[in-house]
C-alpha cells in the first residue's frame, strides 16, 4: 500500500510538472466544445434551463410543485449538469485521443483530467447565473466557507468516475453505451429533483437512510443548497460520510486508471 502512495505522489509531481500541457488541453477542450455553434457557451445555460422547464412542467402536472420545489430543482439541475457532462465525455477521452496515446509519451491522466477541468470552468460560469437567480428569488446565500469544500468534493467525484470510465472504455467499449443508463440511475438516486429530506424524513429503514449519504452527490447537493439557499446542513456525520466517499472515489478511480494505462497503446 505504501508503494501505491509513492506512486500517487510521483503522479501528482508529474502532473504538476506538466501543468502547462494541462492548461493548454483544458483550453482546447473548452474551445472545441462550442466551436462553430452559434450559441457557444450559452448552451451550458440553455441545456439546464430547458431541463428545468421540462421537469417543472412535469412536476407541475403531478401537482408536486410547491414552495421550495422550484429553487431545489434549479440548484439541483445545475449542480448535476457538471456530473452529467463529465460522465458523458469521459468514455471518449482516451479512445478519442488514440493518436496522441500511441505516438507520444505524457501522463495519460492529463486527458480525462483536462476534460473534467474544462467542464469545471463551464460549471463555475453557470454557478454565477444560478447565484443571480438565487439573489433575485430573495435568498441570502450563506456558509461561503463551505464552497471550496463542495467544489473540491464535486471535482473529486467527477474526476474519479471519469478516470475509471475513460480507462475501462479502452478495454470494454460497452462502457460508453452503459454510461448514459448509469448517469440516469445515479440522477434519480441523488436528491437532484427532490430535497434530501424527502428521504431522511420518510419511513424508510434507518440503514437505507444512512446508505443515502454513501452517495457523495447527496452530501454535495445538500452542501450547495446550504450555501446558495441558506438551507440547514444535514448532520455532520452524514456530510462527512458523503464527502469521504467523494475522496475515496477519486483515489480508487486514479488507482484503476494507473493500473490500466500501461497497456493503452497496445489496446488502441
Amino acid at each position: 500500500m505504501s508503494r501505491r502512495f509513492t506512486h500517487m505522489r510521483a503522479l501528482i509531481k508529474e502532473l504538476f510538472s506538466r501543468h502547462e500541457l494541462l492548461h493548454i488541453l483544458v483550453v482546447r477542450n473548452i474551445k472545441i466544445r462550442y466551436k462553430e455553434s452559434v450559441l457557444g457557451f450559452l448552451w451550458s445555460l440553455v441545456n439546464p434551463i430547458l431541463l428545468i422547464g421540462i421537469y417543472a412542467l412535469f412536476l407541475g402536472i403531478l401537482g408536486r410543485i410547491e414552495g421550495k420545489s422550484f429553487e431545489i430543482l434549479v440548484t439541483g439541475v445545475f449542480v448535476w449538469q457538471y456530473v452529467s457532462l463529465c460522465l458523458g465525455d469521459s468514455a471518449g477521452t482516451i479512445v478519442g485521443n488514440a493518436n496522441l496515446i500511441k505516438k507520444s509519451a505524457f501522463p495519460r491522466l492529463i486527458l480525462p483530467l483536462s476534460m473534467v477541468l474544462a467542464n469545471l470552468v463551464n460549471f463555475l460560469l453557470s454557478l454565477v447565473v444560478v447565484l443571480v437567480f438565487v439573489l433575485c428569488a430573495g435568498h441570502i446565500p450563506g456558509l461561503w466557507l463551505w464552497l471550496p469544500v463542495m467544489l473540491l468534493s464535486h471535482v473529486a467525484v467527477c474526476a474519479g468516475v471519469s478516470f475509471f470510465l475513460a480507462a475501462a472504455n479502452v478495454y470494454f467499449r460497452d462502457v460508453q453505451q452503459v454510461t448514459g443508463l448509469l448517469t440516469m440511475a445515479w440522477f434519480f438516486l441523488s436528491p437532484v429533483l427532490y430535497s434530501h429530506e424527502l428521504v431522511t424524513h420518510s419511513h424508510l429503514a434507518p440503514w437505507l437512510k444512512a446508505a443515502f449519504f454513501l452517495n457523495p452527490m447527496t452530501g454535495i447537493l445538500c452542501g450547495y443548497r446550504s450555501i446558495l439557499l441558506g438551507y440547514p446542513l444535514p448532520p455532520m456525520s452524514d456530510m462527512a460520510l458523503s464527502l469521504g466517499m467523494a475522496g475515496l472515489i477519486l483515489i480508487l478511480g486514479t488507482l484503476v486508471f494507473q493500473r490500466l494505462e500501461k497497456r493503452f497503446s497496445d489496446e488502441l
Partner: protein
Amino acid sequence: MSQAVISVEHVSKRFRLQFRGMRTLKSAAMDTLRGVWRRPDRQLWALQDISFNVKQGECLGLIGGNGAGKSTLLALLAGTMQPTIGRTRVTGKVSSLLELGAGFHPDLTGRENIYLCGSILGLNKRQIAERFDAIVDFAGLADFIDEPVKHYSSGMYIRLGFAVAVEADPDVLLIDEVLAVGDAPFQRKCLHRMDDFRKQGKTMLIISHDLPTIQSISDRILFLDKGRILGDGAPSLIVEQYEKFWRQQNTGDLRSEWGTHAVELTGVEFLDAAGAATAAYAGGATLCARVRYRTRGRIENPVFGFSIGDVNGRLIHGSNTQIAGLSLPAIEGIGELCLKMPDLALGNGIYLFSFSVHSWDHKTNYHRIDNAFPVAIKTDRVFDGCCYLQSSWEAGSGAGVGA
C-alpha cells in the same frame, strides 16, 4: 564521453491479438468462461530478446520488412508502450517523429496546434514562444498559421508536424518513415535538418525503407526480422545483408506467371563474365542471361522478350527479339537463348527481370514470368536516379574562373 544514451536489455514485447479492436463485455465473459482470460490463444511476439546500446551522438538506422518490429521498438523507446519482458533506458529528452502531426486537432489553428503539440513534447510556453517563428518559418506556413489545420493540405500538415518536432530540441530524436512522406524539396529540408542534428552530437534512431538514404545518414544499422536482430553493424555491410535476405525471402511477392504454355520458359540463369552463375553485377559489367525453353510441337516465328523493373514494380527497360531484329523462323523441342547487356548503366539496388515468349503478332502469349528474377547492381558511379546516362559540363561565357 561516449556513454550509452539508449540501452535496451533483453526486451520482448507481446501483443495479444484477440484483445485488439473492439472488445466487449460479452466477449470478455465468454473468454472467462472458456478459461482463456489470462491465456489468449493468439499472441504475437513483436520483439524477442532484443539488446543493444546507442552511444551519444550516434545515428542508428533500423531496417527490416513489414512486421519486423521496428515501429514497436521505437514506441518502446518513446515510452508510449511498455515492454513485456526486459527494460529500456533512455537518457535525456526524447522527441519522436513517429507520426507527423499526430497531436494536431483539426479544429484548432496552426498556432494553437503548435502550442498543443509543443507542450505534449515537453516544452513550456516560453520555450514554444521562442521557437514559434522558427517553426512557422521551417514549415513555410506564415500565411496560414491562424487557419484551422483541417483546411491544410496533407503536405502542410506534415511540414508543421516535422517543424514542431525538430524545434523541440530533443536529445534523442526518433524518426519513423518520415522520409517517405512529403515532396522532394521537403525531404531534402528534412535530411538537411537531420544532418544538423548529427553535427550537434544528438542521438537519432531512424526507420526507413529507403536504403540508400538510411545507409548514407546512419553510423550503424540494425536489421530486424520477425522481432529479432539479424544484423548489427556498419551501414554498408548490413544493407548488403538485408538486400541478400530480401532477395531470398521476398521476390515471390511480385512474381506472376501466365500463358498458353505452347512454349515454356524452363529456366533463366544469370552469368558473369567468366561464365559462372551470379545474382549481382557491378556497374558497367556485361550481363548475360541464359534463357532455356521447351516447346510443345513446332512454333513458328516466336518472339522472346524481357523487361527490367525496380522493386516498386516500375518498368525501367524492356525489349524483345523482334525489336532487336533477331528472327527465329521456328523452334521445336528444347533450346536456349542468350540475352546480353553490355555496360550495365543501372544504379545501386535490386532489379527484377521478367521474361516472356509470345507469337509474332503479340496475340498469343505462350509463357510469361514477371518479376521472378532478382538481380543486384552495385556501382561505383555517382549519380542520382536509377539509370546512368552520359553527360558532361562545359563552362560558357561569364562562367569562367576569375584570374
